């Protein structure tokens, strides 16, 4: 037993230095040199301001923008730190709703979201991703179906022709790789940035 103590302690120290310090620091060094943009979170700048990460969804409330999926992320309640409050797309605390399939809370929540979709004048069957929360609460994507369903409302809010907005959505649909890997999707932040850029270009003309 005693004879095992020295190798146990020495090996913990050595492997800590090797796998806990040298390994992550070496990867960090190489990553920062070879892939600085990706290693730092794929941040997007506009006019010198960081407006988000292309990988992380953000909360859009305005009618002028396409909305992402519902998000179940929370934040500590500023009035009572033992409780949490809803904070959609809180990128400092990822997570899903964890509601089971027979949860009344889930069905009520989805029902309320559907009511909102219908009152916004959208179509008869609602896209699944439009009313369900993602696993991370930070899903940057929506389905093409959900994006197209929002096109009319966004176009109206911006006073743009609907056809133009729909065409923009079509250009932002990312297909499956080689027709197999992944799912067709639209990056909401990229779409909204393109929308802003289009509006600016038209205003400048």
């Amino acid at each position, binding site marked *: 037993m005693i004879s*095992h103590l020295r*190798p*146990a*302690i020495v*090996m*913990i120290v050595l492997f800590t230095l*090797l*796998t*806990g310090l040298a*390994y*992550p620091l*070496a*990867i960090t060094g190489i*990553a920062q040199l070879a*892939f600085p943009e*990706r290693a*730092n*979170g*794929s941040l997007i700048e506009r006019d010198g301001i*960081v407006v*988000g990460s292309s990988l*992380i*969804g*953000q*909360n859009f409330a305005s009618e002028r*923008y396409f909305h992402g999926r519902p998000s179940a992320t929370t934040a500590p309640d500023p009035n009572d730190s033992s409780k949490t409050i809803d904070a959609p797309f809180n*990128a*400092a*605390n*990822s*997570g*899903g*709703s*964890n*509601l*089971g*399939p*027979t*949860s*009344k809370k889930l*069905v009520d929540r*989805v029902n309320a979201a559907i009511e909102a979709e219908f009152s916004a004048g959208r179509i008869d*069957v*609602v896209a*699944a991703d439009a009313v*369900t929360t*993602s*696993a*991370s*609460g*930070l*899903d940057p994507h*929506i389905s093409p179906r959900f994006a197209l369903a929002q096109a009319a409302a966004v176009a109206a809010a911006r006073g743009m022709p609907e056809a133009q907005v729909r065409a923009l959505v079509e250009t932002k649909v990312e297909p499956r*790789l080689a027709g197999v*890997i992944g*799912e067709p*999707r639209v990056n909401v932040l990229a779409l*909204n*940035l393109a929308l*802003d850029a289009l509006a600016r270009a038209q205003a400048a003309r």
Partner: protein
Amino acid sequence: MNAIGLAQIAIVLAAVMAAAVPLGAHVARVLTGQRNLLSPILSPIERLFYKLSGVDPAREQSWLSYTIAMLVFSVAGFGSLYALQRFQHLLPLDPQGFDPVPADLAFNTAISFVTNTNWQNYAGETTMSHLTQMLGLTVHNFLSAATGLAMAFALARGFARAESPTVGNFWVDLTRSTLYLLLPLAIVFALVLVALGVPQTLLGSVEATTLEGAKQIIAIGPVASQEAIKELGTNGGGFFNANSAHPFESPDAITNSLEIFALLVIPFSLAFAFGRIVGDIRQGRAIAITMMIVLVVGILVAYWAEAGGNPLLTEIGVDAAPGNMEGKEVRFGVATSALFAAATTGTSTGAVNSMHDSFMPLGGLVPLFNMLMGSIAPGGVGAGLYGFLVLVVIAVFVAGLMVGRTPEYLGKKIETREMKLAMLAVLVYPLCVLGFSAASVLVKTGLDSLNNAGPHGLSEILYAFASTTDNNGSAFAGLSGNTLWYNTTLGLAMAFGRFAYVIPVLAIAGALAEKKRAPASSGTFPTHGPLFVGLLIGVIVILYLLQYFPALALGPIVEHLLLQSGKLF
């Protein structure tokens, strides 16, 4: 279910099998002390490690000495990891200024990482400093996997050797599996992940101003280096709370497929390595095929269950075509979410790319049952192989009873002592899972942690103890595990599930190594053909259905039936 989804699944599994064969040959060389591809670069480091720790690599250990070395090493790892969490506020690399981790949570987390479980009662981005993530959690991602490999190969040597008093040297196995297998693969995989968009920085967070002018704080850090070993070592502890569902841990479908590949490839390669070590490649192949069959059945059931969508939501107007999307990411879809769920629990990884708690009842049954079977298809790094070999021992015993001959496997007679030890190991699981679950539903503090009511609540508790006992670490994450009750009981379940299981296994290794090899005769039952594969699957199914059917009937199965009749909780 559709053809594209099935193709997405088939591509990953085919790649795993194609890579596992050559990797298995490499693993066999590493664990039998032979020179290998990486020896020219790494053998000076290996020798330095032995020299500094006073280990004579030529001196082998008896099974008992091997076991004690493993236990002393694990206790030392537990102590250092516990201390690191408790003092993280005094140490450098804490850019977000986190407080020390509370005692009960630090206890739970330390056991969790030392046992290769990586159950997380904390949210990484709001609890652990970068130093804790690197020096503590990343290190044990390597070491707990290397420990698993060591124990599996001690057992493999028991079958491979005859009349040997020793089963190998724990320190050598630990060092060689880390240096020649886990570390090189992790370096390559981490860099691939960064190239595909996974961050790797020492910053704690970045701040963005959204298009609507709001502030968004985005947690970030050295993610890729931990992500790589988390999958390769079948650990599963995420850098972020949402684990591999977080877009920084897995930015797209390619990283998702690569991560599933990474968590399956070493466990499958071990089956092939086992065949080489015992000198009969067909034996390894039979094991790998059996593991694959059990895994694929689970994947298909989960995919089928998720692809149908939730009828309660379809009824009120939700499109059913994309499947059950609650708790799933758009870029992954249901097919690879089901694949990930089955693969992460078929191994003892426990990483998730979707929230298992929100799976359909039968979709969630698959990961749960995979863990109740002890994650043996293909199992954790090391733990899968030794867990599987225990089932092989039981299966040949059953076969021996049927034909009235002394059971043998690979020329080793399986006698009373081995059977008693095998049963001792196998019975630890139901004792822990059912015992602790029963206790938790009887105390108020156990029920207060539930996120869902009705049968799904029972599933949450059952899942937690299956996951921890099995050293898996995935969760029906609605359960609030960070309470004194669950930190303690889940911690104990992890410790029993690892050590109370593996000590009898190492004793079997010792007993087998000492035995003579019986020459094969015409009466020897062949253990490499389809008949044996079928027998093995039969034994596995009967063993685990008998143990767990009543509990499953009260959880996911009754939930499925109630859901069909529209009942809500």
